[in-house]
């Protein structure tokens, strides 16, 4: 009887998985269960046989374990030495966590930067700002692996090691542009971060799975910042779980007319702390500020951009500026502006999107 047979027979939804793990660990003890879980063919010395899975179910479960092995995924069950015990604070904690990356998830203070997939440049700019400042102050950034705010947060802090929590199995390439070679996930792993999932390989990113993923995001963090989200946003689930578990919730105020401000404003109304600056975030975590926490950085570093261009970009940050607007504000011709934008991009100072250019770092 393999542990995977049992899992396959009982089902792979998080609650079923938790039940199976509890049942098996009562029967054989944690150590044996853990050893068996790492081995697709490992057998359990069970005295009372659990329900027999069909051969198809068994093959599927063994395949799952093989996929994990192939991806170099580490599996921890609740209570293992590598188990991040902070996760047990959330209601309905996961029974197992599987992650790619380091042996243990990064310890120490962590902040969840979460928000909408359909983010505005303002939202992604603020998320990147907060995430980078937090990471430079030694705080681990936790977020989902989605596009929009999640991606902006990871993108700005990936080199410091972030934690991505997936709403699907490890082998499901979702979202595609993050999962492909050289994408965001690879950058997170290269930076020493981890990619976590409680789901078995092959589990597709169903809306339910993505929402239950949010409780892990909250559980792994010491504070949750909601940047942008519409009514009914998944970020509200993260914030709700966090509030229930006694984890600090902050919200970034947005444009009062923008639909993407509904979620953070709802949270603010319900008593979440205002996060208007990385220092708000670090104060909530009781961490003293790193180099990016306060506004002066960038002013004294040498820039490849002409001073007037830099001033305009600083004033508009985090909103992007069009090349033509930049040209007239800085008193340059359009060709000159185009050239200096490319110089800034080559130097890594500015980022360009369909809506224009903006400084990569907060001014």
């Amino acid at each position, binding site marked *: 009887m393999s542990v995977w047979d049992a899992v396959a027979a009982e089902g792979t939804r998080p609650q079923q998985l938790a039940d199976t793990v509890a049942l098996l660990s009562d029967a054989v003890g944690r150590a044996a269960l853990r050893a068996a879980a790492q081995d697709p063919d490992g057998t359990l010395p069970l005295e009372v046989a659990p329900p027999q899975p069909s051969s198809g179910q068994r093959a599927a479960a063994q395949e799952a374990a093989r996929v994990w092995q192939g991806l170099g995924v580490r599996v921890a069950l609740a209570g293992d030495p590598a188990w991040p015990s902070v996760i047990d604070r959330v209601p309905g904690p996961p029974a197992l966590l599987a992650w790619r990356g380091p042996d243990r998830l990064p310890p120490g203070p962590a902040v969840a930067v979460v928000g909408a*997939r359909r983010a505005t440049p303002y939202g992604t700019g603020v998320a990147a700002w907060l995430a980078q400042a937090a990471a430079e102050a030694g705080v681990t950034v936790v977020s989902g692996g989605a596009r929009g705010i999640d991606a902006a947060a990871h993108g700005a802090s990936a080199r410091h090691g972030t934690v991505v929590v997936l709403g699907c199995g490890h082998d499901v390439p979702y979202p595609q542009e993050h999962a492909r070679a050289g994408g965001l996930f690879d950058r997170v792993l290269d930076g020493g971060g981890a990619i976590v999932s409680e789901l078995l390989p092959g589990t597709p990113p169903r809306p339910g799975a993505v929402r239950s993923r949010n409780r892990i995001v909250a559980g792994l963090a010491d504070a949750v910042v909601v940047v942008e989200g519409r009514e009914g946003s998944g970020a509200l689930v993260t914030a709700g779980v966090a509030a229930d578990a006694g984890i600090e919730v902050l919200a970034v105020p947005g444009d009062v007319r923008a639909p993407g401000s509904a979620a953070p404003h709802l949270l603010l109304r319900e008593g979440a702390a205002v996060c208007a600056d990385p220092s708000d975030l670090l104060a909530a975590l009781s961490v003293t500020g790193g180099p990016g926490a306060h506004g002066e950085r960038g002013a004294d570093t040498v820039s490849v951009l002409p001073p007037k261009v830099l001033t305009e970009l600083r004033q508009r940050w985090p909103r992007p500026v069009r090349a*033509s607007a930049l040209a007239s504000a800085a008193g340059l011709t359009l*060709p000159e502006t185009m*050239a200096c934008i*490319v110089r800034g991009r080559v130097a890594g100072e500015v*980022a360009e999107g369909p*809506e224009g250019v903006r400084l990569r770092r907060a001014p």
Partner: protein
Amino acid sequence: MHARLSAVALVGLEAHRVDVECSTGQGLPGLRLVGLPDAAVRESADRVRAAFHRLRLPWPEGKVVVNLAPAQLRKVGGGFDLSIAVAILAATGVVPAGAVVGLTAIGELGLDGLVRPVPGMLPLVAAAARLGAERVAVPLRGSAESALVHGVRLLAVDDLGQLVAVLRDGLRPEQPVAPAPVEHSDGLDLSDVRGQELGRRAVELAAAGGHHLLLAGPPGCGKTLLAQRLPGLLPPLALDDALESAAVLSAAGERDPDAPLDLRPPFRAPHHSTSAAGLLGGGSGIPRPGAISCAHHGVLFLDELLEIPRHVLDGLREPLEGGTVALTRAAGTVRYPARVQLVAATNPCPCGDLGRDDRTCRCRPDQVTRYRGRLSGPLLDRIDLQVELERVPAATLVELPAGEATDVVAARVRVARAVALERDGGLTSQVRWAVLRRAVGVDAQRRVARVADALGWSARGVERCMRVARTIADLDDSAGVSDAHVDEAAGYRLAVPA
């Protein structure tokens, strides 16, 4: 009795000589047409017979056989009527047999003997001249087009009776004269485009280097306005090029045969619902030229690029690369010239509101990514200049002064093109890689490589940047390509959403 003269059959723009033979002799009275005639050619028998009757020309008493050789070539259209009629006249001795030696006749007959022009008079007469015809009988109506061909004597006649007079009585019809070529003005001036500096700059660069251009921007930002003004910035066509363009239009039946030769580069803007046949050419029988060939030596404007079906767009790749479009059908392959400068326009995202200050885009980031992803790939790889335009608010529009006029910009373009032509022997967008590298220089190549590394470009991106940088330097009247030129060139690419 037997007589023979020539006619010309067009397969696409490729001309084939057709010998029209007539033999009269014993048998049941009637006209038999052989030599793979299509329906329109077969109907020719009735038209010819009616014309003879009307003009009181003697119809042979016995059996008349008219053969169009070579027999394996399919003969299409009404252009053989005149040659069939003359062959019968010569076979019956109404006109002396010697009078039809070295004669080629092209034209459709009316029931009263009127001679009408057929589509493609220009390539037909040009082919007749090339195939060695001494005299070509053509319709008087629309003979201005035939007169564009040099080195052949035209017998321009209004009806069959007149041609009989020419061939029998030695009447010499007046040689038609082609009106002098003109540069037709469409009245569109670049000064109409207010604001939109980026777009104006891009159009100028496109004109100077012959680069393909992509304009992305919300509806109403002036993409079409800019595209329509590109032909005005281009130098007038060389006579040979104008003739080539006119020949395609003539074959497509889209040219007024009495109009003077137009030296303005053609502009074609097929609607986005156009079919592959409409864009690239096609149709039953011998494929007709599509919009891309009608824009030969000119500008093809594709608005709403992403609304055009994928398979239609994919068909553009080969002509954009090679300058010809090959339409292969069961009956054979037809080639039309298709050297065009492509201007494509697209919305920035599915809803069109991305990047607008006054409205929020309703698209999810993945929708935007997917939408723009459809742009990428082999077609986008061939578009050197890509710019993102923004909508100029109406209030600003009113305040803005008129932009530089077409004359001013066209003068700069002319100089830059002349410089590039003298240095490289071709347009910067088209010269070979080795020539381009020499023209760009080592330092600029290093700068391009550095930018490409930092921004993660492919080899195609490097090449495009080098071409645009060379054009920028030419417009800047600079012999070498500087870092600033390269940096500006690198900016003319669509950004991918973060």
